[in-house]
């Protein structure tokens, strides 16, 4: 990799015109000013046309591909105001007609790609994040249980440290991680003590405990995940598997879950009156969200979308949204299958929730500030002065669009398209080049 970069650099050096001059001793205080965009920053209650100025990082060298940003490489938000002089910035982004929001936080992702493992654990089904995050406006992902306490060090080395995307993790309660059913059914590999110990050791990166795919009428896996969550003082996220008869959601939400625990795939389930499989949150006989679900959300249980390949149903989502029950967070459950299926990416499912009637501001909150709080990273998902400048710019396009899921399709008049993404003040995705100059002539500190 280093060798490859060295060769690439030498190739670039050969093409003299491709060498990017670094401006030194610039008098300009800001690296970037984003001009004229409509800022939606739910944490700070901003929903208006504003300018944003970004201060340069301590170390504002061009980013290396395939390498995590160090804190010194992260530029921060310096000012947000109605009118900031573009002459004060090295680069000026023309955001007229665009929405400017905090970089999206996708708390249900699968990124443990690799060679020697299986499924979502060190296998080909995990996605190296950078190719799919930035083009969707996502700057932070949480890998939801790809790794367990035994495999996390490899995940850290192989994915986290090699991604410009901020990658956090929920540790699978299964020591091997998401390696496939014969591992995920193995209760003896669900060790709360070892799991909590690794979570505490890496508390800069591990934000929760994940339970997934367990099939069986048995609370033990849930209890073990909760035990690990208590020991490490972090939330758990549950993909509730299936059982015959199902384990009641009411027990999970009101007796097992602590406030802050996360129920993902919240619009999935059997969506029927069957006693088997997985219960759904909307009662299909009344088309209303079940009362204990409303009560659970009130007491702090988190309802997360986790759209995935087959985990969202209009039969559940449409009545819930129409009745005013919004998911706390919108997340993808992205993997090779779901991204080529109905789910696709964050902007697609955000647009789908808008088409169901959820307002833009609520959709943005559910994709930024809410998930940041859910994972106890309240420094993320907002545009406060001093925050790391993770920012997404979207264009809301009017037209005839369709959104589908495994149980049907709805029409929509609006669709979000990602125009630009900034990670730590660096432009890491830029669809139409709406910035001048296009590439940073970095301020040297």
């Amino acid at each position: 990799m280093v060798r490859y970069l060295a060769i690439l650099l030498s190739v670039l050096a050969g093409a003299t015109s491709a060498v990017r001059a670094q401006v030194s001793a610039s008098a300009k205080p800001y690296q970037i000013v984003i001009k004229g965009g409509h800022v939606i920053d739910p944490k700070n209650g901003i929903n208006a046309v504003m300018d944003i100025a970004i201060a340069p990082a301590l170390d504002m060298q061009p980013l290396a591909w395939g390498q995590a940003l160090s804190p010194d490489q992260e530029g921060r938000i310096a000012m947000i105001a109605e009118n900031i002089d573009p002459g004060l910035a090295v680069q000026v982004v023309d955001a007229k007609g665009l929405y400017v929001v905090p970089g999206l936080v996708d708390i249900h992702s699968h990124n443990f790609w690799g060679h020697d493992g299986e499924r979502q654990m060190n296998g080909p089904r995990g996605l190296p994040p950078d190719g799919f995050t930035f083009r969707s406006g996502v700057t932070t992902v949480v890998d939801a249980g790809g790794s367990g306490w035994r495999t996390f060090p490899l995940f850290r080395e192989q994915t986290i440290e090699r991604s410009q995307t901020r990658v956090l993790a929920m540790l699978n309660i299964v020591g091997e991680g998401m390696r496939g059913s014969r591992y995920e059914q193995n209760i003896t590999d669900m060790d709360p003590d070892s799991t909590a110990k690794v979570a505490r050791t890496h508390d800069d990166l591990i934000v929760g405990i994940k339970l997934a795919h367990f099939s069986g009428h048995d609370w033990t896996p849930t209890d073990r995940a909760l035990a690990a969550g208590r020991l490490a003082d972090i939330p758990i996220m549950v993909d509730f598997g299936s059982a015959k008869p199902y384990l009641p959601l009411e027990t999970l939400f009101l007796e097992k879950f602590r406030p802050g625990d996360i129920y993902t795939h919240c619009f999935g389930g059997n969506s029927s009156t069957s006693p088997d499989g997985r219960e759904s949150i909307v009662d299909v006989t009344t088309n209303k969200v079940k009362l204990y679900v409303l009560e659970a959300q009130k007491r702090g249980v988190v309802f997360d979308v986790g759209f995935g390949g087959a985990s969202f149903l209009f039969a559940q989502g449409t009545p819930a949204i129409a009745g005013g029950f919004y998911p706390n967070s919108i997340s993808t459950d992205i993997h090779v299958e779901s991204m080529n299926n109905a789910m696709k990416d964050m902007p697609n499912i955000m647009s789908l929730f808008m088409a169901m009637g959820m307002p833009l501001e609520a959709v943005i909150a559910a994709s930024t500030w809410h998930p940041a709080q859910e994972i106890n990273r309240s420094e993320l998902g907002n545009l406060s002065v001093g925050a790391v400048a993770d920012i997404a710019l979207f264009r809301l396009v009017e037209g005839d669009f369709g959104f589908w899921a495994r149980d049907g399709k709805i029409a929509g008049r609006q669709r979000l398209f990602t125009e630009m993404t900034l990670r730590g003040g660096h432009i890491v995705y830029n669809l139409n080049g709406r910035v001048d100059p296009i590439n940073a002539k970095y301020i040297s500190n």
Partner: protein
Amino acid sequence: MQRTLLMLGLVLLLLPGLTLGQRRNQPSSILIKGGHVIDPKNNINEVMDVAIRDGKIENVAKQIEPAPDSKVIDARGMYVTPGLIDMHGHFFPNAGRGDPAPDVLTLRSGVTTAVDAGSSGWRTFPDFKREIIDESTTRVFAFLNIVGNGFSGNEQDTADMNAKLAADMALKHKDNIVGFKVAHYIRRDWIPIDGAIEAGELAGGLPVMVDFGSARPALSLEELLLEKFRPGDIYTHVFGGNAAVGSPVSPGGREAVVDQEGNVKPFAFKAQQRGVIFDVGFGGASFDINYAMQAMKHGFYPNTMGTDMNYHSFNGAMKNILNVMSTFLTLGMDLSSVIEGATWKPAQVINHEELGHLSKGAVADVALLSIREGDFGFWDREDYKIKGNQKLECQLTIREGRVVYDFNGISIPDPE
């Protein structure tokens, strides 16, 4: 996934009324109605219906009535083209660079065939085949790197360039390996290129694709194109290099196909006439809009629209094949030629003439594209930007008769 299947199974058992995810239960017959078909091989460029049955193109005609079992897709206002072929990408994450696996950035761009350009060599190809080729929905071919370890190895290591072993691997995997690749070499000798061409000959006349590296002083591009290359060999990154290289003051690097006055070098025309293929290979630092503009002004067009998709170009100016194609549309190339450069032409170049067209009986790899009007920008490695008002967008991708990507659900029945 196993869980997904389990859940789907449950849903099937419990809820006979629910329709399944479309990828798992698709009809054997699809009728695409009212789209504007562009099929360069067959000289079709007009509104036509396309019928697909059992994974193959059944018929292309003005008016086709739906069969009783057909899923009808309304393609009015869209272009219907052969599934796109990306001549130049990097799709082997485990070569160590974090390149994308094919399915994730191909299907959503209308690409049904992706050619990996040298990520694997003869020693690593079996891994590439097992982990990627055999596991992907996208049809994946490979140019075998002349370096035995491909991108996992040292591309300067001439000791690891073995024409015989490379050719043997290609002969063993004729279905997957379509040629040989040389890339990133910086020394002033012809060892890798001679080796790749020798491998091409030993393997029965397979083409080589050359990323011309950078030597000091530069190796002669004229010598490569007119003396080394056989007709059918591929010069990628055609609008890269440096126009100043080759002049007396230039220290080295790589020549461009245009000179400092913006004229196309006569040998480039001559090479194209004798059958050398010029591939875009946009990549992270290999595309200069001004070179492309100057060349096209003088009538020199690229043959193929290879992206050089890789772990950095996908977030750079390149993004995906539709963005590359839209760049060339904006530069004045006509839509049909742009489509040809991403369908029939690359199919011929890789000697897979069964692909890249919509002839009756051909495998039903199809892309439905639309053109979005708006204010767009396209830019290059020099930060040079042009404005455009059209951008290609992928609406639907069909691979061997199955819908594998559907942006707006146009293949899903309308709600009642």
